[in-house]
């Protein structure tokens, strides 16, 4: 059995080199990396990502260099000539089991430090609390008002003008502010998001803040973070929720606490 293979070996080499160059060129030219960062914990996530990228990048290049080199170098002539007899080597195998294990465990231990900061630490008592109630296909954003408490809601009370079914007989509900698709949060101040849904599962995704958490009907989920950059950002839905999933657009506005309070009082008057 004869098989030509010079060309295949060469193509592997070329494809690998050209692909690598194209990748690097693209990264430099278009800089498609992360969106501008706007939260405190996001820095940790980005660092973890970059370090993982470097480590996996090295592994990727090393393994591919070997793969490509072997395919290029060890072409047989198909005449039944023997290859090198090398069925196993315990020492090598132990090494390449343990080394990846150690690297990987180091990565996740580091990752868990950040995970604990994000999820296992209680948000401070003075955190700015906002509730987001997802629905097909919009975000109802509720601020608790001066009393700092959300009023009762009841799905039976839902109407067009009362999208989350706020129970106005509850005193705590009196000063609640509900707006559509506009999430305003204070600069450099911890924020606690409380997420719910009226219908199906949605997912609040704030790409600039490295925040994502599902809004699940029947329960309340939370995510706390600290915005660090002033400005206007996107709020997207990241869990398939129906035909309008792709256009469930919201806005995030980060502004200093004083300005935000002014805005809130304006809203209260309008409500």
């Amino acid at each position, binding site marked *: 059995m004869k098989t*030509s293979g010079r060309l295949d070996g060469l193509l592997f080499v070329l*494809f690998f080199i050209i692909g690598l160059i194209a990748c690097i060129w693209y990264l430099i030219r278009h800089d498609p990396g*992360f969106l501008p960062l706007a939260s405190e914990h996001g820095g940790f*996530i980005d660092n973890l990502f970059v370090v993982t990228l470097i480590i996996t990048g090295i592994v990727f290049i090393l393994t591919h260099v070997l793969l490509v080199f072997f395919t290029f170098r060890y072409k047989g002539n198909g005449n*039944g000539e023997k290859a090198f007899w090398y069925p196993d080597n315990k020492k090598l195998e132990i090494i390449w089991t343990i080394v990846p*294990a150690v690297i990987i465990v180091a990565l*996740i231990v580091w990752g868990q430090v950040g995970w604990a900061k994000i999820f296992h630490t209680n948000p401070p008592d003075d955190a700015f609390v906002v509730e987001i109630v997802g629905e097909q296909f919009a975000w109802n954003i509720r601020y608790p008002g001066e009393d700092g408490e959300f009023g009762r809601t009841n799905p039976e009370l839902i109407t067009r003008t009362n999208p989350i079914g706020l129970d106005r007989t509850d005193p705590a509900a009196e000063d609640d502010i509900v707006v559509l698709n506009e999430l305003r949060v204070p600069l450099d101040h911890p924020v606690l998001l409380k997420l719910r849904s009226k219908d199906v599962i949605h997912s609040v995704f704030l790409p600039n803040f*490295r*925040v994502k958490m599902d809004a699940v009907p029947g329960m309340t989920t939370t995510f706390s973070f600290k915005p660090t950059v002033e400005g206007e950002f996107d709020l997207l839905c990241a869990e398939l929720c129906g035909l309008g999933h792709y256009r469930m657009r919201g806005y995030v506005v980060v502004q200093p606490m004083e300005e935000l309070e002014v805005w809130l009082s304006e809203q209260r008057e309008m409500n």
Partner: protein
Amino acid sequence: MASEHAVGTVEHHKETFISKYVFSYDHKMIGKQYMITALVWALIGMALSWIMRIQLAYPAEQMPWLETVLGRYAEGGILAPEYYLAMMTMHGTIMVFFVLTAGLIGTFGNFLIPLQIGARDMAFPFINMLSYWTFFLASVIMLLSFFVESGPAAAGWTVYPPLSAIAAAIPGSGAGQTLWLLSIGVFIVSSLFGSLNYIVTVLNMRTKGMTMGRMPLTVWAIFIAAILGLLAFPVLLSGAIMLLLDKNLATSFFIPAGLYIGGELLSYEGGSPILWQHIFWFFGHPEVYIVALPALGICSEVIATYARKPLFGYKAMVASLLAIAFLSFIVWGHHMFVSGMNPFLGSVFVLTTILIAVPSAVKVFNWLATLWRGKLHFTPAMLFAIGLVSLFITGGLTGIFLGNAPIDIQLHDTYFVVAHFHFVMGAAALFGIFAGIYHWFPKMYGRMMNNTMGKLHFWLTFIGIYLIFFPMHFMGTTGVPRRYYAFTEFEYTMQYGGMNEFITIAALITGAAQIIFLINFFGSMYLGKKAERNPWNATSLEWTTDDPMPGHGNWKGEIPMVYRGPHQFSTPEGKEDYVMQSDNTGFEGLEREN
């Protein structure tokens, strides 16, 4: 038992067309039936991906021909969002269940296990036949759902309730979703029949000398995948039954109280959407390996054969398969880091998930060591196996990002995930199928496939896959969400307009390249060069059959005995560069006993 089968004569019942080609009991015919059915499904799945890709590249552009092709799905020449989601759901479902599960384990499990372990047929040929025809029934039901009024299921292949349970939430969750659940239910029964057969055959029907430790790696991989299937699919069945009841008989397993959908308050009580996710992914992650393991097994065997080297670290390869299989049952939560699941649980799942990377890494290094100082023969099968290694590395490494929970906060449900699973599960498993077909085609049809066309097919597909899916990593890193009908609503997703066009063109060309394969495949069945008995000078038992294309019963005479392990290439003492498992050199004195 083995003795009975070792010399047993083949039952000769009269073969009619029906008994030979339709309700055949012959494991080889059943394997081929699986293969052909899966190929048809692959074409449908690919066509669906084309429709999606065209929409993503040219959103809101009127294409009258689209209406001609798709009818009510694309009124006015624009694919409607609800039907984009339906195409996506059906694409994922078809690819995962019908192409990669049925197409891999169904084809090669049936065709190879008896041939490679030295048995005349599967343990239960009748159940085997039933297994194929229940799969066929599942296929028909799934196909029917394209024709119901409200369209096929559209809640994603993960069918998360409440979206999947309530017709008012999305049209596909009406009759389409019901048919989807029924089809999957029937498919589970089919897969159960298959798994039973594979496991019992491997444990009970091996020829003399074929210890577990001498089985070719393909058989090992299929055996382990079958165990996974046996234990994982019933869990999906439980979920499917509950979802069906929620959908159609108003129970509240998964659907909470107080839902307000389509302007109406629904009367469900206290169900838990997250419960579904736990059930689904408890099945879903092992499913990924039900798909992947047979491909990895085929890859190992093909690489050893065409590198003319013993598979490096055979024991470690088996051990890593077992480790992956075991771990796959305790990692499901990595799909749920931001689902509202308790973050402490998330920490546990991070650990188990990342552990799976270790046996995967071992596999890659062992493949590389097998290639080292080999005498490589670049057949299409070998190329696809090498390609698989590359794709598996790429997809495996991106898994290290996703498995580390903090990074997954940003990457979850973005195109990074789409890229990841298309590499590690989609393309890698597909390459396993291709490698297997090119390698075993001579045994299946007694003829050779065309080498040049095979290579062309490989290069177009391999490069194409990278062009389609690699750029998606960039999109995902930036935070472009998946399951989006269009990227027109946000500035930062719009910046990828050009890239999306590029991906679509690559997808169309790569898809078109599959025509080369189809021509080669069907053409070679009739026109290919007649194959020799052992065209690749391979070592396993299937290449010892008397005819290149064995009939029912596999061996005309006695089933060969096995004297040594698999993949014995270039042994120092062998005369040639391969020693077949049935080669009795050194054991000449040993007579068969019975």
